[in-house]
Structures are given as C-alpha cells and as structure tokens.
C-alpha cells in the first residue's frame, strides 16, 4: 500500500520518534493518521502497518480493537459526534442527541446510505464549559441546541 506524499512524510517522521527497538511506539498514531486518509482500518491497512512496524497482524488487530476512534468500516464524509456525558447532559446534550438522530435519520454508529453523514454518541470530548458540544470529524461546535444543530447540518451539506 502507498499513501499520499504528505502522509508518507508524516509516517517517516513518526517512526523516528521512538527509541531503538521500540518501533511499535508509532502504532497507535500511525493507525489513526492512516485511517484519516483511507477511511477505515482495512485488512490491507493492518497488513501494511504490521510490515512497516515489524509486528504480526494479530498485534495490530488487538490494538485496533481497543481504541474507540479506530474503525473497521468507513464513517460518513461528515462524522457527527454528540457528547451526552455529565456536563453536556446537564446543558441539554440529550436533546441535541435525540434531535440529531431524528434529523439525520441515523442511530448510534450508523452511516447514511449516500455516505454523507455518520452519527455517534460520544463520551466527554473536553468541551464541558461550552456544553453541549458536538464534534464533526475533528472540528468542535460548542453551546449547541437543536436549532444550531440544524444550521450546522445545512452548512455541512453545502460543503
């Protein structure tokens, strides 16, 4: 497998960061950055990463299974994550979550048939003082409400 020149440069830099004999240190960040480009951790990705880091595919698999951001199936073009943890819950995070499910016609961890949107209820994303919070991909949206959620979805559709 080959990746974009930009990603290859990043991966080349990444593997140099760990001490001799500890190439495996690069595993988690490598998987996440590759997923960002490829869309999911496919069998090919597992093989490729195992080869590059001198690991067995099983050693890669067990790590993929552990981390919640690593996924086997691609998310939508806009991966919408709604936090309902305690600080968001207290400020209406559940209302935003219920609204998001209705508006996008998706349930937890589902992707729309056209691949535009996927939805996930997530745990604390570190936006407690600006709750309720939503993350789309890596972008934060603070102090959300059902109305603001609709505006956000419209904006994303036109992107």
């Amino acid at each position, binding site marked *: 497998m080959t990746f974009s020149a930009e990603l290859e440069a990043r991966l080349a830099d990444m593997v140099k960061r760990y001490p001799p004999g500890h190439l495996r*240190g690069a595993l988690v960040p490598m998987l996440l950055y590759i997923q960002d480009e490829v869309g999911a951790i496919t069998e090919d990705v597992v093989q490729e990463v195992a080869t590059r880091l001198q690991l067995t595919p099983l050693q890669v698999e067990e790590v993929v299974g552990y981390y919640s951001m690593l996924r086997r199936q691609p998310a939508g073009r806009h991966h919408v994550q709604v936090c309902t943890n*305690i*600080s968001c819950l207290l400020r209406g995070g559940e209302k935003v979550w219920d609204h998001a499910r209705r508006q996008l016609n998706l349930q937890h961890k589902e992707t729309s048939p056209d691949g535009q949107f996927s939805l996930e209820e997530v*745990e604390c994303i570190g936006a407690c003082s600006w709750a309720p919070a939503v993350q789309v991909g890596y972008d934060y949206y603070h102090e959300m409400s059902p109305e603001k959620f609709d505006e956000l979805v419209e904006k994303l559709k036109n992107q």
Partner: protein
Amino acid sequence: MYNAPHPLEVRILTRRFGLPNSASIDTYLAHDGYKAIEKALAEMTPDKIIEEVKASALRGRGGAGFPAGLKWSFVPRQSPKPKYIVVNADESEPGTCKDRLLMENDPHQLIEGALIAARAVDAHAGYIYVRGEYRYLIDILDRAIGEAYQRGYLGKNILGSGFDFDLHTHSGAGAYECGEESALLESLEGKRGIPRIRPPFPAVVGAFGCPTVLNNVETFCSVPWIILNGGAAYANLGTRKNGGTRLFCLSGHINRPGVYELPMGFPLPRMIEEVGGGVWKGRKLKAVIPGGSSCPVLKAEETNLPMDFDSLQAAGSMLGSGGVVIIDEDTCMVKAALRIMRFYAHESCGWCIPCREGTMWLGKLLTRFHAGAGTMSDIDLIRELAQNMLGKTFCPLGDAAALPTISIVKKFREEFEEHLNGRKCPHEGKG
C-alpha cells in the same frame, strides 16, 4: 478560545491568554518566554530545580495531587538507561477542559515546563501524549515544537549549554483509560491501554522500561513561573501544602460556565456565586461534583469548603482534575448516577474483573432503576456492588466508577425511593 476572564482570577498560567498570536514563539518570548530555562541552565543545578519545585508545593493537576517535586526526586540520578519526560495530555475526565486551553493558547509554556523537568532529571527525550480527539491541538503543538527547534530551545546543545532535549507529540486514539499513567505508557509503546501493576512506579520503570517523569499538562505549565519567581512565591499564592493557582472548569447549571484560574484554597461558594454568577435560572443548588466525574458528589449543604486537595479529602471527596460540575435542584440524581456509570462501563478496559463486571452490572441496575423497574433491595445492592469494587483493581478506574455511585446512593437515597414501583421520574422534562 477561552471565556472572558474574571476579576477574581489570579492569572499565572493563563497570563498570556488573549495576547495576539499567543501560541507563537515571538509572543511567548516577548512575555517571559524561555527565560526560566535560561535561568535553570545558567544558574541552577538539577537538584536546585527539584528543590525549587518541592518548595513551590505544586501538586499533580491530573487529579491525584501528588507533590510534583517529590515525584521528580524519585527518578534515579544515575541510570544506565535513558530517562524520559511524558506529558499527560489525554484530558478525558468528564467535567475537565482546561489542558485544551493551555495547549491551544500557550503551547510554548508547556514545552518550556517539560524542558525544565528534563533538565532536572537529565532526560533527553520526551513525548506529549495527546488524546486523539484533540487533533487541532497536536497541529498547534507540532508547530510550536518546530519553532522551538528553529530557535534553539529544543534539540542539541540548547542555548549553548551542552544539554540536549527532543520533544515529540504522540496521538492517542480514543480511550479514557489511557489518561491513567501506566495505561498511557502501554499505549505510548503501541499496545492496548491496560494498567501496569505498581511498584515499580514510572519514575523507576516508565516509558520503554526506563525512568520517566510523567505529569499532567497543567503541572508542567506551572513550572516556568516557579523557576522564574521562586518556589516560595508560588507556594504563597495557595494554601498550606497546596501551592499556587489552578484552572477550575465550571460547567453544568451555572450562569457563567468557563475555565477560571484561581488560587488553591479558593472558597467553593464564592466560586459558584461570584466567579460563576450563581446557579442558572434562579434555581437552588442541589449538588456539586468538585473535581471531575470520578469524585464523590457534595450535597449543597456540604459545599462550604476551600478548594484544595486536603480540604476536599477531609470532606470525603477529591479535588481531582479541576472539573467543577454544578447540579441544580431540578436534576434527577439517579439519572446523573446512571450517565456517569454508563461512561465508566464504556471506558473500563476489562483488565480487572471487579471493574469490568462491576461497571456493567451497575449500569444495568441503574438503567432499570431509572426506568421505574427497580426494587427497594436494588438500592442497597447498587451500593454494595460499588463498595466491592473499591481498592480491588490495578488502576483507579474501578474506584472512579464506584465513588460517585456510592456517594449518590448515600446522599440522595430518597430520589432512588421516588423511582420505586414503576413511578415516572419526578424530574423528567424539567431540564
């Protein structure tokens, strides 16, 4: 991004927030930036640095409150193995959103703090372990690290001193458990984030089997000011054995949620009323989670406390990670307990059976209870189950799940009884 400052704040760590291009090295250099490492390299021995941090009474800002200088002194001076600095930027404790601001608004302060720690223990490489969701912060940190290399504050022969230090970011990929120091180290080594048995502690056997100083972002960020102004000056900002200021994240039912830098020991009632502008919608206070969701909750009448590690411990709770969650009178505490437990059940790594099974069963019991299908004996069962998790796991996640649950059952038992016999939640829809 940060909220409007409050006049009661004592801005030490946040003093550069709001300056134009506050994340750039030029802004940093124009406002005391890298002066502390200059001083440390030119005028201080490594031992003197550690003494100064000890004198500052700086305690770990990740939650445990362990004295930072003492932790550094546990790193063996002579070591055949290399030593490492690890910055815990896996901020994930529900209610906590302060490290995000420190990295976004002033990344060089963190770099300088890590660099001073490296000098103190003679480490030559370090990692900033950032939770995967904080990608934009990794980009900010990478830019700042690049600037620091360019200007000679990282890399070989820093400021002509002969001291070398390399610093790298390292991305997590979604796991609360990796905020626990030993699980973080496993993750840094490319494995599943499961905790290690201790001793040995990371100061002796840490990253890659080598002696390691591992502290929270905010702890490292406090170090440059301590070196520049002296440990005693920092200690004087706080209370006995609780030096300095800390960032408190006010969230929940409060009029002015936000992150505020206040002296250690700042009274909680004033934090709620004056800094936070009081409970929202003119409602009464019901409870406060004083330091992130792992802490036992305080009832409104128990909140007349100075916010420092020892006072909170004496009150049967914890100062934790600075996440102060305000809960108003219209909140269902059974639902709060349930949501907190769902989180821990999701995040339990599964390594220790009491935590893995306990969080799952408590999640089921609380779900059933909140739906009105609980029985009187379930109330005690919930408490007993949680009690049985305490102290029986490799890492504190089991305790973190059990402690808030026990406190809610004990302090708000009547709310559990209100849900008995199929009764609809009396607080539903009040929001």
